[in-house]
């Protein structure tokens, strides 16, 4: 099975098919994206997470090597850094 990511960005699909995929996915997530300027409750963004998780899980047979794990660690640290920014806006609130 060819990984989904490879299929989208490298081979397997032509431009027309790529646009078709994007349009379909946007039909699912665009309504949630309209709530971004509002005060955010995570339940509003569930459709985006649903699509991201689906991509992640349906693409699970990706090859795992040291480079990928290093990127994962950097990504997680970056996320926690961003998260701490939100939590530090509350005086006296710790990160976790």
């Amino acid at each position, binding site marked *: 099975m060819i990984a989904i990511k490879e299929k989208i960005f490298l081979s397997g699909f032509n431009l027309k098919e790529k646009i078709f995929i994007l349009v379909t996915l946007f*039909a*699912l997530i665009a309504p949630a994206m309209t709530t971004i*300027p*509002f005060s*955010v409750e995570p339940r509003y*963004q569930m459709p985006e997470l649903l699509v991201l998780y689906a991509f992640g899980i*349906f693409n699970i047979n990706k090859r795992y090597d040291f480079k990928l794990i290093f990127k*994962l660690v950097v990504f997680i640290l970056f996320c*926690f850094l961003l998260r701490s920014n939100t939590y530090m806006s*509350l005086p006296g609130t710790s990160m976790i």
Partner: protein
Amino acid sequence: MLFSVYKRVNFNSITGIVLLFFIAFGVMFLYAQKIYPIEFSWGNDSKESWKVATTFFSLHPYHSYVEYRGRFWFFILAILNKFSLIFNSSYKLGFNIFTSVEFAYITVVGVPWIFEQLFKNKLSYLVRTLFMLVIFYFFRGHFLYPLVDFPALFFSILGVQFVLKYNQTPKLFFIGLCGIFITCALLLRMNYLVALVFIFILFIWKLKSNKIRIMSGLHLVFFSLIVTVSLICSSIYQQKIQSLVKTSGIDVLKYQLFLGLKEQKIDPIVFPDNRGIMVLNKENFNEINLSLRQYLKLYISHPLYMIVINMQHIFNGLDISYPIVYVDGLRISFIFCLLNYILIFLYS
């Protein structure tokens, strides 16, 4: 033993999917009925929605601010409530069945089917089960509240499925169903109007012969009629509601745009947005209404701040901390956050 059962069931067959659907349904239903009965903790919108629904058919119905989204959701809830009363059971029974069907359909049938069609890639039994379990782990509690977010998504997924089906086989039946489901999503949450643009693009995607073109044109008219009539009905009712309910004259969109600058996240407590507050102070903006035009003007005067504020909103929206909607205090699980980041990374 479980693995051998897994191997025996051919997931590509309908039987396998039906079996998995009932497993997902059972898991969510058991969780909702027995493990996590949360009616005592329904707050804010959930509490108000249920109050409106339970008095929906009575002579003196209860009215609330939650009705700004229209009456369709309360109608569904009222039917579910009546269903529970018929069986003389817990008033949540009907709602729990509905929400469990919703969960099972989204995780086992809807989303995997869309991905299969888009990527021409058969998904295995194991992958579908894993997807269902992941959604259960992260969002299990979100399905237990009578809120419109998930039902709207459920109907929109059905709509997208039928427009894709129409793309494969152009039949009036499919586009009719697509129209009905997208209308349901629209009646629950008006922002699904945006999805309509993409649905129309998918709808006209594969026009080839003249016959198909004429047929599609007719379908488009039919589809537009359903949506227009339902929107007009909804808008008429909303005007009626606004005269009934005191909403302090606040326009919901303007109010939310203003709050979006003052607050960066509600989860479950409100996290203030210092950048947004600074921008509002700089512009001497003290009213709690902020029109879309004024909001866009802020993009011109403070582009960097506004981009950062909205980027942070995206991150905060994706950065979930709890599997339920209403939480009493900060009880954040490090593992929960970590797994969420890993899954997002798998996409990137």
